[in-house]
């Protein structure tokens, strides 16, 4: 029979003088739960906002879009839809601003109708949207106008036509994407866009058709029925429900990342809980022995401390939930540059509820690990301090707790990742890391003992011997510090890899300016203009657009009807841009067959070259027949070769290459690639090109890369902000682990002091021990981080893997330095106080 009232009273009385010691314990929980609640609240709010804002983000009930106008047959289907209709054409183009003599690559959008039907196109002045009925008016991105001092009323030249700027665009329906960084949106009336001369054969135009449908109209059956018909013509159907799904999918990665951060903080928090409770229990051993001597049962003593831990843990969880709710107010501000929608910051009760339940659960589980042995503390401890466990036999309850931790972790990860297998992989990865660190700790204690350098100096030997002596902290510190280092370093390496891979694109002699939309007869003039700027013509490529009509002797329609077809729809159901030439460029390599030679005579078979991935997706091989429709003209070809193409280089790359002597007379446009030495030359060259050839678009890759780098810099900032949670909890774990070792070492240090050790010697012993521990923990952690980031980079993110040695060196030195400094701070007590005072306290 348990006397709960006695246990409650004893728990209260016993905790009075020691509550300060549980501050670490509470901080671990608070930070872990705060991260979880903050991130979950953000995720819940994001999901709610997606549901609420999907309609205003899409702007219509149904959107049809593609890079060609709808065909007549589909047009009939669409015409039969009830409700209101609007259309929008968009394309990338150059714009010229005479007032500032500036040219800019813009995303030009020609609007007809009353789009958006939901939400609004926000402008300044607010009525500027109405101006789009005026064929001379244009609306220009507010941020861009601010940046370059462009005013309302200034003129803007687009292709062959001039417009006046009627207002500033405060938002856009092209969704937030990378393009916004280097191609600000410009809106004009659709009829006016058509008069600019920019929409012509070969232009990369996106056609969008918007429908506002009556409430009674069921859109899903309609899209289910006609989806394939639209997809066969490379047109995409979007609905509000689909938009919700798409947005949720799009944020899945963000969610996974945030969940990972929450998990890391929580796991570090768990380690913090276990090690701080362990410290607490160790300081309580004399009291526990006395309680046991006085006749208390092991179980009752255990309940006294469990109650203390649960009450304080519960408080920690509540504080954590409050802190998390406050922090989540900041998250939407951090993410506002990446999110196309506004995320609200309301209090998320489900997130708080989850945080509380998970918090109490993990606190209890991880506290039980060091608490359970309390039941078995022998009353003999009052008479003699022993190091060995009080009882040798196995404690099955302890094993049950370990099992519950693994099962709980798996359940939590399953919940976070939404997949049992993924959860299992994460759990497995964590267990492997734990075991690896534990094995390294064991190996070190064994190795140091086995090969102990007996001739080395006393202090060094003392420091080294502390790694394997009884009550050593090698395993605890190595696991906690090593795991913390591993997780944070992985985060750091991956972030560095992302930036490195982008930076590389802009490196050295890579071309950085691409001109497209050039008409055949403009080429000579443009070449001359380019040469006059002393810029090299790196590539000058003709491009012909065509569509595939069949392959391997069957028509596309036959293949579409064939359910056993292996060719992938994306590969054949698209407008293909091909070029023609008679040699490989420096970034290609023939894998099979021979690269097409120029066709000698009209009527000879045409042998084309396919990019290897494209050939695989089409399931065709060398010798197979492929037929095309080249802007109305049928053309039969044979696969002559497959090529490997280096896609990391900034060049024009083609899935299909024709031989010379076939397409020369087909309607085509040209692309010119050059390399500009600096932004000033690029700007002057761009202005000259746009003035002389208004239809030609000049893409400045450097500015795209700058925009990408800006975005990545912001992403890094967010990652770093989130990593602060992990770093803080990691730091708490570090401090609590080291405090644990302080408890072990303080008595030794005092006795050494009594026997005449100088401060220098004591500090050297501590520094040696902690430097060794820090070195081993950091090195093992970094090794784990290298393996895990290599796996992530190679298989998940498909990035070229580099080892940022310098950064890793810095992390290594930092971790070791922090550990040594905290370790030395721990020794301060011994140095400051007189040995007698400490000896009398019977530490």
């Amino acid at each position, binding site marked *: 029979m348990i006397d709960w009232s006695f246990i409650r009273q004893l728990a209260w009385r016993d905790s009075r003088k020691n509550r300060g010691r549980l501050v670490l314990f509470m901080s671990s929980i608070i930070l872990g739960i705060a991260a979880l609640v903050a991130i979950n609240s953000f995720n819940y709010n994001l999901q709610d906002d997606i549901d609420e804002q999907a309609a205003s983000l899409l702007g219509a009930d149904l959107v049809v879009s593609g890079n060609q106008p709808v065909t007549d047959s589909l047009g009939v289907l669409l015409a039969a839809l009830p409700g209101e209709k609007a259309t929008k054409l968009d394309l990338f183009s150059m714009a010229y601003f005479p007032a500032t003599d500036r040219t800019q690559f813009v995303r030009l959008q020609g609007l007809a109708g009353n789009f958006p039907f939901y939400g609004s196109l926000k402008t300044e002045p607010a009525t500027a949207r109405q101006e789009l009925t005026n064929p001379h008016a244009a609306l220009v991105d507010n941020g861009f106008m601010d940046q370059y001092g462009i005013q309302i009323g200034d003129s803007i030249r687009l292709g062959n036509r001039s417009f006046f700027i009627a207002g500033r665009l405060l938002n856009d329906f092209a969704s937030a994407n990378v393009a916004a960084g280097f191609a600000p949106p410009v809106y004009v009336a659709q009829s006016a866009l058509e008069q600019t001369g920019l929409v012509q054969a070969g232009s990369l135009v996106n056609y969008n058709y918007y429908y506002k449908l009556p409430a009674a109209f069921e859109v899903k059956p309609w899209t289910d029925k006609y989806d394939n018909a639209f997809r066969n013509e490379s047109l995409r159907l979007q609905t509000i429900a689909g938009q919700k799904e798409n947005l949720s999918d799009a944020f899945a990665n963000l969610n996974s990342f945030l969940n990972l951060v929450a998990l890391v903080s929580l796991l570090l928090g768990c380690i913090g809980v276990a090690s701080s409770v362990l410290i607490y229990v160790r300081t309580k051993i004399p009291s526990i022995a006395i309680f046991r001597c006085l006749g208390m049962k092991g179980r009752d003593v255990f309940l006294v401390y469990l109650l203390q831990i649960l009450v304080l843990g519960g408080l920690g969880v509540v504080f954590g939930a409050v802190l998390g709710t406050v922090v989540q107010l900041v998250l939407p501000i951090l993410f506002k540059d990446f999110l196309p929608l506004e995320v609200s910051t309301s209090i998320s009760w489900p997130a708080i509820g989850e945080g509380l339940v998970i918090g109490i659960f993990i606190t209890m589980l991880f506290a039980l690990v060091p608490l359970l042995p309390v039941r078995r503390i022998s009353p003999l401890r009052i008479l003699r301090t022993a190091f060995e466990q009080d009882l040798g036999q196995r404690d099955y309850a302890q094993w049950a707790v370990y099992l519950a931790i693994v099962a709980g972790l798996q359940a939590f990860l399953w919940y976070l990742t939404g997949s049992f297998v993924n959860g299992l992989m994460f759990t497995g990865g964590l267990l492997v890391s734990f075991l690896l660190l534990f094995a390294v700790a064991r190996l070190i204690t064994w190795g140091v003992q086995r090969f102990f350098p007996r001739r080395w100096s006393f202090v060094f030997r003392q420091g080294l011997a502390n790694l394997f002596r009884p009550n050593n902290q090698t395993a605890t510190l190595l696991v906690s510090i090593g795991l913390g280092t591993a997780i944070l370093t992985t985060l750091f390496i991956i972030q560095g890899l992302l930036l490195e891979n982008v930076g590389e694109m802009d490196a050295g002699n890579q071309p950085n300016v691409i001109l497209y939309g050039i008409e055949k007869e403009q080429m000579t003039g443009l070449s001359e203009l380019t040469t006059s700027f002393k810029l090299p013509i790196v590539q000058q490529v003709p491009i012909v657009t065509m569509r595939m009509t069949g392959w391997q002797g069957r028509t596309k329609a036959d293949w579409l009807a064939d359910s056993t077809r292996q060719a992938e729809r994306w590969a054949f159901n698209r407008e293909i841009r091909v070029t023609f030439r008679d040699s490989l460029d420096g970034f290609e390599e023939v894998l099979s067959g021979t690269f097409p030679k120029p066709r000698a005579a009209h009527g000879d078979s045409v042998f084309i070259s396919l990019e290897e991935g494209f050939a695989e997706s089409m399931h065709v091989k060398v010798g197979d027949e492929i037929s095309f429709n080249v802007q109305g003209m049928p053309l039969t070809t044979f696969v002559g070769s497959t090529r490997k193409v280096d896609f990391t280089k900034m060049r024009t790359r083609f899935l299909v290459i024709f031989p010379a002597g076939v397409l020369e007379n087909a309607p085509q446009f040209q692309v010119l690639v050059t390399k500009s030495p600096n932004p000033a030359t690029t700007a002057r060259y761009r202005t000259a090109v746009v003035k002389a050839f208004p239809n030609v678009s000049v893409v400045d890759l450097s500015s795209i890369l700058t925009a990408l780098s800006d975005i990545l810099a912001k992403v890094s900032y967010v990652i770093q902000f989130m990593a602060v949670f992990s770093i803080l909890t990691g730091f708490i774990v570090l401090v609590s682990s080291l405090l644990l070792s302080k408890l072990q070492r303080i008595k030794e240090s005092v006795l050494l002091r009594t026997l*005449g050790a100088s401060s220098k*010697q004591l500090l050297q012993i501590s520094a040696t021990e902690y430097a060794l521990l820090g070195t081993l923990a950091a090195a093992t952690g970094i090794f784990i981080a290298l393996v895990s980031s290599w796996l992530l980079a190679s298989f998940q993110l498909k990035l070229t893997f580099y080892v940022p040695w310098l950064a890793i060196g810095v992390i290594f030195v930092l971790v070791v330095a922090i550990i040594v400094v905290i370790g030395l701070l721990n020794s301060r007590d011994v140095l400051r106080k007189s040995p007698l005072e400490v000896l009398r306290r019977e530490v």
Partner: protein
Amino acid sequence: MSTILAVNQLTKTYQSGDRSLTVLADVSFAIQPGESLAIVGPSGSGKTTLLGLCAGLDRAGSGEVILCDALLNELSEDARAAVRNRNVGFIFQNFQLIPTLTALENVMIPAELNGRKDARVAALALLEKVGLADRSHHYPSQLSGGEQQRVALARAFCNNPQILFADEPTGNLDESTGQMVEDLLFSLNQEMGTTLVIVTHDLELAGKTQRIIQLKGGQVFSDTRTQTPA
């Protein structure tokens, strides 16, 4: 050196909140090299405090302690540690062995701190003398109380100290074990010519020294010679 330890008008006061408690007041005495002395007195009379001050484990409030020609009051903790290491041996009632070191490692420490190359040999020789050579690799927890105190004795003599301070050296031991430790203490002391200062309740043990200082209320109550110095 005519005196190895001189204590002049020593006072120690502890502050507890806004109250102060004088533990030692105006204590003076001197000890000659090779002399053995017992400090006796009831609990709370300031015995252990006096021992701590004489051995340089704590700082006096006023007065002076000169140990092996070093005026301890003026020395930093590090300098006092150096004096202790070169000249002083300790034995405590509760042994105060370093729990994570083996018996041999515990004994070696003073010599190692002193940078002696023969620490291991010297420590083994001393363990042999106290009859624990075969337990040299055992940890303190694996030794009985008497064995632990013998290890502490070996450690105390490891650096050939000029003076040995013993705080209730047999207080935690049974009679026969206590007797064995006592015998070892006096024989090693005699063999090595060490000055011996013992703090004890045990008047019988005190009687075996040449001189007894009795403390009462933090003051020297009596200072008597039991034997004529040799």
